[in-house]
């Protein structure tokens, strides 16, 4: 059995086969601002108490602080609900992005079954969890019963070898993989990362791979851990091998994440806004990489650079390293931990005709504001290099 199969099998107490439907207990049920909608649905069911308040985690990050009265009403409803239900794992605005906070606080762990009302819940595969996104109504069902059904997914094994070239990082690698596989290349499937490079990747880079695997449709995207490894004779539906040794920096062009090209091919394209942050690339390592490039100059005239640390801990770390001060001095706008403008809610929406380069995870039409704006996705290195010049810039050439 693959890792995904083994985790599900451990829940049902027997071997599981690809394609069969199993019902399992949930270890952790995570929600963010959309908990307001989950509560609305939960209250319609007609039961008073959630199944287990210690297994529910709620983190306000999508619109933090609230950008509208409607959101404020939702946040208030959530605060009252967690109080009433005794849900202690509640993180109000300011802690940071749900996935980052879950991992920092040690909720995510090998072998756990985690569901979240956020598609990038696949992130927790980085620490070995079977973690996936669901909708608010389904979450209301989990709050009521503690259980959920899954079709046992086939697994794609991705073997990664080689050494990253200068200023090429996990973001470039996963964009390359998504470009190869397509936006539905891992639809309904589990992804398992193997190979010498995967095994040696630090946690922050693992999170990037698990997080963005969602953009090729993955149900879960898991790294092996000492606790959970695949069987020797595990059956994989597909095997993919990638050597990063000659990989140049990659960029996803409008309006699909699988529309991937080398950054150099887009070189010179004028950019109005650069965003560095999100659950994909808002960690301290990302900010350090961006700073390494940015400190050599300042934000180009006519460019808005928005920097969003993914959590309070990261924010404080970046402050203590002088990164925040340096970035602000050089023209960046540093905003509070949270999802920021990634999902087009607030804090930097795009006008028609504008172009943005972001380290975030989606470049869909209208994602960050006007449907007539364009979004490009790249690494923190590429983002910082682009902020310096005002044009899409290959950071390995600086």
């Amino acid at each position, binding site marked *: 059995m693959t890792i995904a199969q083994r985790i599900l099998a451990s829940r049902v107490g027997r071997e599981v086969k690809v394609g069969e439907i199993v019902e399992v207990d949930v270890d952790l049920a995570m929600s963010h601002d959309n908990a307001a909608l989950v509560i609305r649905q939960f209250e319609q*069911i007609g039961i008073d108490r959630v199944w287990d308040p210690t297994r529910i985690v709620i983190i306000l990050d999508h619109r933090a602080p609230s950008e509208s009265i409607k959101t404020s009403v939702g946040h208030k409803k959530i605060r009252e609900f967690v109080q009433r239900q005794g849900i202690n794992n509640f993180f109000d605005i300011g802690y940071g992005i749900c996935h980052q906070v879950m991992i920092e606080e040690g909720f995510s762990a090998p072998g756990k079954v985690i569901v979240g009302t956020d598609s990038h819940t696949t992130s927790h595969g980085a620490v070995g969890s079977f973690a996936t996104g669901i909708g608010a109504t*389904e979450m209301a069902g989990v709050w*009521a019963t503690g259980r959920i*059904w899954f079709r046992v997914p086939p697994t794609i094994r991705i073997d990664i070898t080689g050494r990253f070239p200068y200023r090429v990082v996990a973001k470039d690698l996963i964009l390359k993989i998504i470009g190869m596989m397509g936006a539905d290349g891992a*639809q309904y499937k589990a992804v398992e990362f193997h190979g010498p490079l995967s095994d040696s990747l630090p946690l922050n880079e693992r999170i990037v791979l698990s997080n963005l695997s969602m953009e090729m449709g993955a149900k879960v995207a898991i790294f092996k851990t000492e606790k959970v490894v695949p069987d020797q004779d595990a059956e994989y539906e597909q095997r993919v091998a990638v050597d990063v040794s000659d990989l140049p920096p990659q960029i996803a062009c409008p309006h699909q994440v699988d529309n991937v090209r080398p950054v150099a091919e887009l070189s010179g394209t004028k950019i109005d806004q650069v965003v560095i942050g999100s659950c994909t690339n808002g960690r301290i390592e990302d900010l350090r990489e961006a700073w390494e490039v940015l400190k050599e100059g300042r934000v180009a005239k006519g460019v808005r650079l928005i920097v969003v640390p993914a959590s309070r801990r990261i924010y404080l770390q970046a402050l203590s390293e002088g990164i925040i001060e340096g970035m602000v001095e050089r023209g960046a706008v540093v905003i509070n931990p949270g999802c920021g403008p990634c*999902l087009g809610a607030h804090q930097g929406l795009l006008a028609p005709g504008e172009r943005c380069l972001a380290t975030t995870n989606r470049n869909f*039409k209208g994602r960050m504001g006007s449907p007539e704006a364009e979004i490009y996705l790249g690494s923190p290195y590429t983002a910082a290099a682009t902020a310096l010049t005002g044009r899409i810039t290959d950071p390995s050439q600086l």
Partner: protein
Amino acid sequence: MILRGRVIKLGDNIDTDQIYPGRYLPITEPVEMAGHAFEGIISDFLQRAKGSIIVAGKNFGCGSSREQAATALKWAGIVAVVAESFARIFFRNAINQGLPAIIGHHLDRINEGDELRIDLHLGKIEDLTTGESYPGDPLPDFLLAIIEAGGLIEKLKRSLGGG
């Protein structure tokens, strides 16, 4: 369960940001959500939605887990979504909202405005305008039960609720 409706034809990889823009996520009332379906993307969608069936290519509903995408379509009057394939979270959300989501094959031969008839139990899709029929994947019984109950909440109300 037999469904009928006129076709609104869409392409591949229709993402949930197009179906329901992120700026409207704080809305929790379905009727209000419906007013923003495909806003800025398909200008006359709301006028055409009522009683219609969306026929799309592969990976319909990719992207965000926002179930408002499915809810907005349902409350805008969409009868069902037929696609070559669905993004997994959208598929679950649609079923949980009581919006039938059916995987069909060779859908490129279906035209905008055609009248469709779908037998949910058999997974059979008939184009009444052209007289052709298309194979679809029948939904498992436990998912049909959710649709027939009118969604997951209605089903849970019956099994768990006191009311």
